[in-house]
């Protein structure tokens, strides 16, 4: 890697740290001893077949796991910048604001495009003197959606296409001024052009914050990620740079997945 000397000199800062994490859904294990670290200002892609626990990890990182009625963290630790995520005294609202999660299915709330973007701001109140429409426009620009919607900010968001909706969800999370972003298969329903636009957006955002990207596209992980973790059956089967984790020397089950021999 070209930048390896520079990286070795600067101390690596860790944003998310997960150690030996076990999560059960009604007694059935979903995560079975996951350990990984996400560095500041980088994109970690989590790959793996469906049902391997990828989304569950994201739920742990922004404390939405407690919305699943019978889900339970059985063992292990997870922290964000030194803050224990399982701490009972931690207010889930504040953590969810700091760590934005963009769920798999893009969802429009029943209100205008600008009000969708300002959904979190109206609750948390971090206006800092900015006018609502200006703030909405600024955030939409960062999510790469402003050009397409600038003339209809007051129209219902339900009229957007799926690709636009996906970027609206990113904007909604960005308006919260998060310190980290988690994305659950952001391009599962998108055409190639929209996918590339989102990836471009993510690369820009990663200059300022750590991003965890759950995906099942190997190619996408190679394009955007600094690091890759491959989940098989609730465990991390391979981890490292994309070349290390998915290269020839890796776990044979990972190779099966990468080369499309397992679902």
């Amino acid at each position, binding site marked *: 890697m070209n930048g390896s000397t520079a990286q070795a000199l600067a101390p690596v800062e860790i944003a998310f740290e997960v150690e030996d994490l076990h999560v059960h859904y009604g007694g059935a294990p979903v995560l079975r001893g996951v350990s990984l670290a996400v560095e500041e200002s980088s994109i970690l892609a989590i790959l793996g077949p469906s049902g391997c626990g990828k989304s569950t990890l994201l739920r742990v990182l*922004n404390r939405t796991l407690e919305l699943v009625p019978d889900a339970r963290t059985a063992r292990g630790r997870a922290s964000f910048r030194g803050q224990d995520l399982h701490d009972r005294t931690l207010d889930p609202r504040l953590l969810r*604001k700091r760590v934005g999660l*963009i*769920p798999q*299915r893009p*969802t429009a*709330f029943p209100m205008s495009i600008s009000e969708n973007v300002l959904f*979190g701001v109206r609750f948390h109140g971090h206006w800092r003197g900015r006018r609502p429409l200006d703030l909405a426009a600024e955030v939409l620009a960062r999510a790469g959606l402003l050009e397409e919607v600038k003339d209809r900010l007051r129209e219902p968001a339900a009229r957007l296409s799926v690709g636009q909706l996906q970027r609206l969800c990113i904007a*909604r999370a960005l308006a*919260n001024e998060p310190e980290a972003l988690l994305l659950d298969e952001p391009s599962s329903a998108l055409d190639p052009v929209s996918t590339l636009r989102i990836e471009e957006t993510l690369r820009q955002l990663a200059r300022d914050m750590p991003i965890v990207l759950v995906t099942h596209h190997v190619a996408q992980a190679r394009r955007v990620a600094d690091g890759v973790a491959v989940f098989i059956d609730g465990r991390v089967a391979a981890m490292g740079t994309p070349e290390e984790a998915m290269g020839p020397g890796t776990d044979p089950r990972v190779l099966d997945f990468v080369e499309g021999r397992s679902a």
Partner: protein
Amino acid sequence: MRTAERPSAAHRGAHLADRLFTVMAWGCGLLGILLPASVVAFLLVDGTRALSWRFLTDRPRGFPLGSAGGIGPAIQGSLALVGIGLAVALPLALGGAIWLSELRPDRRSSHLLRFLVECLAAVPSVVYGLFGYAFFVVFLRFGISLLAGGLVLAAVMFPILLVSAQEALAAVGPEVREAALALGVDHTYVVKRVLLRRAWAGLLAGVVLAVGHAVGSAAPILFTATVYFRDGGLGLREPVMTLPTHLYFLVAEAISTDQAFGTALVLVLALLVFNAAALALRRIGAHP
């Protein structure tokens, strides 16, 4: 081809039974469409004669009283009674529906509560009349009044409102709640800004159905709210005239068949409007 060979007697019998079955099923189905249509058509034919602007706004007149004039005070009274009932029942039912649908209590308590709500819906309406008379009219000394009748109608509407609101909220997908909560907002905010807005059409359809049912129901208010004749404004502690009880008195005292036709038609037309509105709202609710 097998079927071209001589079919056996058993085969022919089965075929005949199939035919007969289809004919009978269609017969039942057509009856199901024709019966309501003919009831409405029957009332339309004789009721439209009585219907006029004056009939809708004037007070009952003539001798015996009610054989001429209109049903204005009865319409007023019905609206006031149902308005009071709705004002009491809707907030409670909405709260109950949100509690059952969003807080997701354990299976046992949610089943128990749903069972009790269905029991409430199963109480015969005349028993509500008995209860309302004993409790509101006599025990709480409200007298036969708009207030007592409105509270009884609240009990009649409550289960309809709760069940339909719960269904409307359940029709909002779980991903909507997750997307909202993932932004760090609290439940109150999600319910107010997202869930109620997303479910508005279904909620309103439930309100329309409950109101349609309450407007036509006479047994609960016969002893708690109504008198045969009253004109001169509404008062919470005063009795009222209502459409269904007016129709009952017109028929039971053999006062006027023409006026009864008019009153019955007004009730049925109101029901048609309510049902059509509920149908349209449920369509909107299914494809927001």
